[in-house]
């Protein structure tokens, strides 16, 4: 048999370039560390690998548990057609989130530690467990496709037997960790902007993840059609879009209620970068698609539906970035370094590549889908104007995502003005307790003991200063490392010789060379001689 080389297409070339850059960035990340390969800092410890790869990635994969529940618990048979591609997306999504985490963790080889070192008080601990378990659940949910492909009847039977409890476990785990990603930020009330901070963050994260997961199934159906000619009934997608409208409306009401309850509604109308991005998330990415999806003509048009789903997705991405990056009030500014962007792009591309490989080799899509009519046949009334408007809003949202990342940071801990402070006390007036006089260990030819008196030594300085001598010359805590000083050391400019050069310029200190003939400045005279 002849080995078939994959054909070179435009997208394959693009993917290839992304992988090469991503590999180089990977080399930088693991070869040089986080400091060299990211723009993260102590002020901004979490960047896009957390804010985008994890927060957004997990949310977009939420379709998996919703569709699984719809089909297997609520028994809505018509959604079966999208169950498999959705579960595949979720499985890939979670696997890639774990890959992203390996990049972000300072010690990635210890990623398994939370499984054996328990801290139930930590939200991160809970997320770690849930994500681990849910990834296994997704593997189980996906496994029938694998077993069918290789005609493994026994394991297929076993999986089918436990399928329902597995699905229910998946729903519980998803509910827990989708919301817990929001709970992560409940512990930073002073650092997260008032437009986003709320004890109800877990609720908001859960609801928006449902909307995003569903929007992702619509989005992906259209991509699959374009890429593989596999398509899904429009009716199903329209049904999903109705659910999105309900879910997002609930979110809008709760969000505005929460803002007003916390007295933060006015923040929306202050013209700050935060408020602009907030409107991007809530206006362009939530209210607008909800409004558009209420219009049947747009909802039942393939392109209208696709663009609305895209808006929901972009709004969701912006929303997650707002919490994780824009909303963080910091003294430092963060913009991802090229390496961070390159690795994120490579991970996303990897998702697309694996998805297309799996779709081509496994029975992911129902068979009859192969012979459906082309898209254009369905499209009797293209709504061009809507397409244009939606496209423009979409571009605006993308610009906002860029803006969210490039955000200048707020004056969180502003240092108060100097003029306001009037001290009632002058600490220098108090009596200082100097350390007791110190006896240097004498050298061989020492003409007399050298005793160092801190108080006398400090008389010549404006304020007591320990630094000049204690930075590297003499120990402060463990005074055992003072050697027997020889004049050779002093001549070289070490220890006392560092300041006592006899130049008379800088510190007007006397010289301490052997020739200086002022031995009694330091050495005590021997008794009686």
């Amino acid at each position, binding site marked *: 048999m002849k080995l078939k080389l994959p054909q070179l297409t435009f997208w394959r070339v693009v993917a290839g370039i992304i992988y090469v850059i991503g590999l180089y960035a990977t080399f930088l990340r693991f070869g040089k560390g986080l400091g*060299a390969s990211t723009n993260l800092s*102590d002020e901004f410890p979490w960047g896009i690998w957390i804010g985008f790869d994890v927060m957004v990635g997990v949310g977009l994969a939420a379709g998996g548990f919703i569709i699984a529940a719809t089909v297997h618990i609520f028994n809505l048979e018509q959604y079966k057609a999208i169950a498999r591609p959705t579960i595949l997306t979720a499985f890939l999504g979670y696997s890639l989130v774990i890959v992203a985490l390996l990049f972000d963790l*300072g010690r990635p080889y210890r990623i398994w530690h939370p499984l054996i070192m328990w801290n139930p008080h*930590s939200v991160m601990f809970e997320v770690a467990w849930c994500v681990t378990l849910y990834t296994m659940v997704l593997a189980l949910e996906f496994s029938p496709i694998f077993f069918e492909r290789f005609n493994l009847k026994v394991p297929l039977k076993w999986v089918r037997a436990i399928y329902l409890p597995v699905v*229910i476990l998946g729903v519980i785990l998803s509910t827990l960790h989708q919301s817990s990603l929001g709970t992560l930020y409940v512990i930073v009330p002073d650092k997260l902007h008032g437009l986003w901070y709320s004890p109800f963050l877990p609720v908001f994260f859960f609801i928006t993840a449902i909307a995003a997961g569903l929007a992702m199934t619509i989005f992906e159906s259209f991509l699959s059609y374009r890429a593989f000619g596999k398509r899904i009934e429009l009716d199903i997608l329209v049904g999903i879009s109705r659910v999105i409208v309900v879910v997002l409306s609930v979110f809008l009401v709760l969000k505005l209620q929460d803002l007003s309850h916390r007295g933060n509604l006015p923040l929306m109308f202050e013209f700050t970068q935060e408020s602009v991005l907030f409107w991007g998330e809530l206006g362009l990415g939530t209210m607008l698609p909800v409004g558009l999806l209420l219009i049947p003509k747009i909802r039942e048009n393939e392109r209208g539906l696709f663009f609305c789903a895209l808006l929901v997705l972009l709004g969701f991405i912006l929303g997650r970035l707002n919490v994780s990056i824009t909303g963080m009030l910091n003294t430092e500014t963060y913009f991802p370094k090229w390496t961070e962007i390159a690795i994120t792009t490579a991970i996303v591309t990897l998702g697309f590549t694996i998805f297309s490989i799996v779709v081509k080799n496994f029975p992911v899509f129902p068979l009859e889908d192969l012979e459906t009519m082309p898209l254009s046949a369905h499209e009797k009334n293209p709504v061009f104007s809507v397409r244009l408007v939606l496209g423009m809003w979409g571009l605006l949202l993308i610009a906002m995502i860029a803006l969210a990342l490039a955000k200048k940071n707020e004056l969180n801990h502003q240092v108060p003005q100097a003029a306001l*402070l*009037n001290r*009632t006390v002058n600490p220098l007036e108090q009596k200082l307790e100097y350390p007791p006089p110190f006896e240097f260990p004498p050298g061989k030819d020492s003409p007399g003991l050298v005793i160092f008196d801190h108080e006398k030594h400090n008389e010549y300085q404006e304020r007591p200063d320990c630094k000049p001598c204690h930075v590297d010359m003499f120990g*402060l805590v463990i005074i055992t490392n003072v050697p027997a000083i020889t004049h050779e050391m002093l001549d070289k400019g070490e220890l006392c010789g560092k300041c006592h050069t006899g130049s008379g310029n800088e510190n007007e200190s006397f010289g301490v060379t052997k020739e200086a003939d002022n031995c009694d400045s330091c050495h005590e005279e021997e008794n009686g001689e």
Partner: protein
Amino acid sequence: MSYAILTDLTRCIGCQACALACKEINELPKEDGALKLSATTWTMVEKRHDVFIRHQCFHCLEPTCVSVCPVTALEKTQEGPVIYHEDRCIGCRYCIMACPFEIPKYEWDSVLPRVQKCIMCYQKRVSLGEQPACTSVCPTGATVFGQRDQLIAQAQQRLQNHPNRYVNHIYGVHEAGGTSVLYLSDIPFDQLGFKHARSDEAYPKLTWNILSQIPSVAGVGGVMMFGLWWIINRRITLEQEQKKNNSKSPDSNQKKTP
């Protein structure tokens, strides 16, 4: 019984002896001129206008960092210091994110980085019954080490004896649920940029209130979903059985059309 450090800003002359002692005992590089805390500077004295402020870890009574760490790499010891177990840390940096005082720092330049912060000389001094390096070298008694309740009493005594010298507040008694590092000052703390951490409540409660709901959410959710599935499935089975019966004897059920 737990230890604490009391720093009296009216006595601090900014000599940096504490900062140098810290570097020496912890074998940190002594490069000069550190303007803020970092992975290699665990305490330092900042001159803010005319006031010298010593920065260090607050060693909270209910530390946020300890509560957020997924692998218990941070620990609040019985003696008071909050210490770090390097061998557990996975490097998620949630502690750095969450600390209300922005204390933990990361070794960004290292390939295998650690979280670094003041550990109150736990292994080298406090666990052996000695005081930390920083307080041991202070020439003015501006920063002292002792039992927390005794230090609070001592601070209250100072406030009583010199009402004109101090603002009437001991920072750290209640802040963030109470800390093991206390401050006295002659200038209101918020004017010095001290974070007015939500004074009455410890931060870990914020997330614990939510996390503690998990067992009930999981339990109720699981039971509800099994229930729903059972009801729905039962209905479908009944419907199918009825259909079967209908097809067997079409005459008797003419009203119910398929």
